[in-house]
């Protein structure tokens, strides 16, 4: 028989690149035949091949039983293949796992240590709760095995099993603690790793081990283990502050002396995160000076983020951000270096640097930082990204046979200095990461955050701030309109002195036709423009009035904005107009009278054109399209202009009273900003009960569907709220697992609970006749879509429904009764 070996399969696959799926289909058939053979060798070869195909994405669950068969082979090689296949393809609910229990038990107690080892390996991967429970004691017994190799594996395997079978932890922990004294260093090392993991979730249990671990920390020079111990202490120090003092010594020693970057990183991280830097004892650093421990950490961190190796930079910045939270003073003088990191092509590094930079903003450097960030945004205003690696793709075969390691590879743990990345750096045209919208958004948010932190604690010049906000409107490149408009409003309203400047800037914004011409309700600039309009209207008294402003505000594209925005614009236009009138009334003469009349007419025209839409539009439609709020405002405006035209119909020597006083419509009270918590501070007056009902209880008017009057009430299925909650959970869960289940009536709003009685249904008699019968029939067939559902519905029929709230007859208005639209 010519069964293909694994190598043949792989070679065949590579040869048949074009008709891969056929070839695989054929091979799968062959494999199916092979696994049925009685010879274990062929079976195991078949399983190997299947394993390979599984890695390519083909399911191999149909062969689970065969896999277990192969696992049970006496031959080591076959057993190994079986276990490998098991670890790759078994998951939590593979049913054949139960068969494997005894098999694994036999292997665990085998005299051949290699069998024991593969059994342990496999068990660690495929352990389920049942397997773990059954085999726990067996593995526990192996902890005393004569070979350290096995002991080490047993420890790690037990850890995995306790994750599935937590009760076993009880027996495991004392043994684990003993293993710390094991003569073999690798066993100790695994014990430490496992304790580190366990301590993460439950540090208190392992606190008594601290002295032993401390001893290990000082005595060992196995860097891998040291890292684990240091990490362990990071989870222990929060619950035992005295540990911090004790760790201070060895940690600082390690930090000063170690040459391994990863260990250094771990130590500094622990020191920062575990709050050991708050210990005030001084340390002697490498040149004999006495400095603060925190300063030492900061100093060493500099090596990281200042290095040219990107990995170290990233890692350094992460820890620096942590340090900044606790000791911002140490970070502030690293300003220059961090700013340089902002220019790094790597996105992750930039984002971290951004975080650190925005944290270190003070009064003095705020403008500098903001300028730097904005210049980044400006420089890369083009969004187009260029593609990466553009060198020609070498042949796949050639690539695959080139060695993975080139001899200059350096290991981190033993040597200082930067990690050399392997060769083959492609010369690609680098897209600028500032083009990415995430970065831009983050940068804009950082600028805003820096400026407005702690009620503008860092702000010295608000006019500059407003100018920055306006610039950001132009250069942001991402949708931050709402954010910017909010900040503009905030600054203008809360800071009196800047209002005048702000109004001027807003005027500038609104006169920029680029922004206003094509704006629509959801474009990013709309929010900014509407805020600009509001500010202009509210504080127009602060700047010399100009009748051009009115034109600015009554945009031709107004209708394309949302209703709130439109209302803002119209209201602002009214305020500006009346303000101008008032202003002009101050120096009344004949020319002014002419001016007022003509401006009034033009204003009236623009408003009415806004009201009635463009030429040629259907009048009714145009008016009907206007949001109600805007329509009423426009009507007001028209009335005002009419009043003004009446008042100025005759040329008079002095200004009409109307013109002078109109603006007081808007200036009765000055609007101050109100804090969000203000409402809560208003005391409830005596005798006012906010909890009791004012009138009769209002029934649930969420009725959307009134079913036709059903025949005998016994067949009706009153579903109350109680039923709903009980069934929704389990049924919904079932439904989710069934991909073919259609969303049915149960997911539509459940209004059935509040059905009015038959007699209460008012006037409208729907003449449905036989339609009613068929509807009830279809409703009944709808219900038992699944067997479970019908059972539950039957159950609920017998139960008495909970008393529902009193059903008030609902007066449903028929079509004839609807008021006519004028």
């Amino acid at each position, binding site marked *: 028989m010519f069964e293909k070996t*694994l190598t043949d399969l792989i070679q065949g696959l590579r040869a048949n690149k074009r008709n891969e799926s056929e070839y695989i289909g054929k091979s799968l058939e062959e494999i199916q035949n092979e696994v049925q053979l009685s010879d274990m*060798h062929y079976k195991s070869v078949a399983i190997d091949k299947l394993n*390979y195909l599984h*890695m390519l*994405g083909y399911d191999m669950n149909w062969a689970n039983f065969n896999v277990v068969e192969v696992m049970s082979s006496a*031959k*080591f*090689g076959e057993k*190994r*293949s079986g276990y*490998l296949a098991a670890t790759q393809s078994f*998951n939590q609910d593979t049913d054949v796992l139960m068969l494997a229990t005894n098999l694994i038990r036999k292997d665990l107690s085998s005299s051949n240590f*290699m069998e024991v080892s593969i059994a342990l*390996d496999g068990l*660690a*991967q495929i352990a389920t709760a049942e397997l773990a429970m059954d085999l726990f004691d067996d593995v526990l017994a192996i902890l005393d095995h004569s070979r350290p190799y096995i002991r080490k*594996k047993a420890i790690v*395997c037990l*850890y*995995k099993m306790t994750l599935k079978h937590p009760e076993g932890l009880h027996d495991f922990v004392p043994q684990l603690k003993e293993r710390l004294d094991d003569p073999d260093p*690798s066993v100790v090392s*695994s014990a430490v*790793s496992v304790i580190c*993991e366990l301590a993460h979730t439950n540090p208190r249990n392992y606190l008594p081990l601290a002295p032993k671990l401390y001893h290990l920390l000082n005595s060992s020079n*196995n860097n*891998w283990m040291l*890292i684990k111990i240091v990490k362990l202490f990071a989870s222990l120090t929060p619950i035992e502050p005295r540990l911090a003092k004790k760790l201070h010594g060895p940690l600082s020693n390690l930090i000063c002396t170690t040459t391994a*970057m*990863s260990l250094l*990183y771990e130590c500094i*991280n622990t020191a920062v995160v575990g709050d050991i830097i708050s210990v005030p004892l001084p340390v002697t650093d490498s040149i004999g000076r006495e400095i603060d421990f925190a300063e030492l950490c900061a100093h060493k961190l500099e090596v990281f983020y200042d290095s040219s190796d*990107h*990995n170290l*930079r*990233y*890692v350094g910045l992460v820890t620096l951000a942590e340090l900044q939270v606790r000791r911002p003073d140490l970070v502030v003088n690293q300003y220059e270096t961090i700013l340089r990191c902002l220019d790094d*092509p*790597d996105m*992750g590094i930039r984002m971290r640097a951004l975080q650190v930079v925005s944290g270190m903003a003070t009064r003095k450097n705020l403008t500098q930082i903001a300028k730097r960030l904005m210049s980044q945004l400006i420089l890369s205003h083009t969004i187009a990204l260029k593609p*990466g*690696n553009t060198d020609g793709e070498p042949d*796949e075969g050639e*690539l*695959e*046979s*080139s060695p*993975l*390691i080139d001899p200059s*590879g350096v*290991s*981190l*743990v033993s040597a200082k200095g930067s*990690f050399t*990345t*392997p060769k*083959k*750096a*492609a010369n*690609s045209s*680098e897209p600028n990461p500032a083009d990415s919208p995430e970065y831009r958004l983050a940068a804009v948010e950082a600028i805003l955050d820096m400026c407005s932190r702690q009620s503008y604690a860092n702000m010295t010049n608000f006019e500059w701030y407003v100018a920055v906000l306006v610039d950001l409107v132009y250069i942001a490149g991402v949708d931050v309109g709402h954010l910017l408009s909010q900040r503009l409003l905030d600054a203008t309203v809360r800071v009196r002195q800047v209002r005048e400047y702000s109004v001027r800037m807003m005027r500038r914004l609104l006169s920029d036709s680029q922004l206003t011409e094509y704006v629509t309700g959801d474009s990013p600039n709309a929010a900014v423009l509407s805020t600009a309009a509001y500010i202009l209207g509210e504080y127009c008294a602060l700047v010399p009035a100009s009748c051009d402003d009115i034109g600015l505000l009554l945009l031709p594209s107004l209708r394309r904005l949302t209703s709130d925005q439109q209302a803002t614009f119209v209201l602002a236009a009214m305020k500006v107009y009346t303000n101008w009138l008032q202003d002009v009334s101050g120096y009344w003469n004949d020319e002014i009278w002419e001016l007022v009349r003509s401006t009034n007419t033009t204003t009236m025209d623009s408003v009415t054109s806004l009201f009635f839409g463009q030429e040629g539009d259907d009048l009714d439609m145009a008016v009907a399209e206007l949001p109600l709020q805007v329509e009423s405002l426009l009507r007001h405006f028209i009335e005002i202009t009419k009043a003004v035209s009446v008042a100025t119909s005759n040329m008079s020597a002095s200004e009409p009273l109307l013109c002078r006083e109109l603006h007081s419509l808007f200036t009765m009270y000055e609007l101050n900003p109100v804090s969000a918590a203000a409402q809560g501070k208003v005391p409830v007056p005596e005798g006012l009960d906010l909890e009791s009902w004012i009138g009769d209880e209002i029934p649930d008017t969420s009725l959307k569907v009134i079913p036709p009057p059903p025949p005998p009430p016994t067949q009706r299925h009153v579903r109350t709220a109680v039923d709903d909650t009980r069934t929704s959970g389990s049924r919904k869960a079932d439904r989710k697992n069934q991909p073919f289940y259609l969303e049915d009536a149960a997911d539509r709003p459940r209004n059935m609970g509040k059905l009015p009685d038959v007699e209460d249904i008012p006037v409208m008699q729907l003449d449905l006749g036989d339609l009613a019968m068929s509807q009830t029939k279809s409703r009944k067939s709808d219900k038992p879509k699944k067997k479970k559902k019908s059972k539950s519905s039957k159950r609920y029929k017998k139960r008495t429904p909970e008393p529902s709230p009193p059903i008030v007859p609902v007066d449903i208005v028929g079509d004839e009764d609807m008021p006519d639209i004028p």
Partner: protein
Amino acid sequence: MGIKYIFLVSRQGKLRLVKWYVTLPQKEKTKIVKEVSQLVLARRPKLCNFIEHKDTKVVYRKYASLYFVAGIDLDDNELITLEIIHRFVEVLDRYFGNVCELDLIFNFQKAYFVLDEMIMAGELQESSKKTVLRVMAQQDETEAAENAERGWGDI
């Protein structure tokens, strides 16, 4: 804590080896592998080797045409993971003798066995290269002996 998964992917996106140390449904696993390999394959050479992906950190390193990718928790030490990957590659190199991707394709089970010796349940269990190689040699001897016996029976 600990490593959640390790996989090797070629530059063309073909998966060469995958090992999971957490239990997830099969669909989740394939989804994660696909997403992360896309992220990794799109990285330019000068960027740092750590990516943040949902709630895990992805540590990767490119060796010739193969990307070695490991997924770790947010509070794990990335530098040490990079070191673990490097160790693994060094052991593979010694084991196969100047290993290249082809070796890993044709002897994928051996690669798995080496990985199992070094990393179990997401933790490094053996950092000494010599020990790992010694154990692998022993296992291979046993297997060869078995096959030799068998070989005679075939004829």
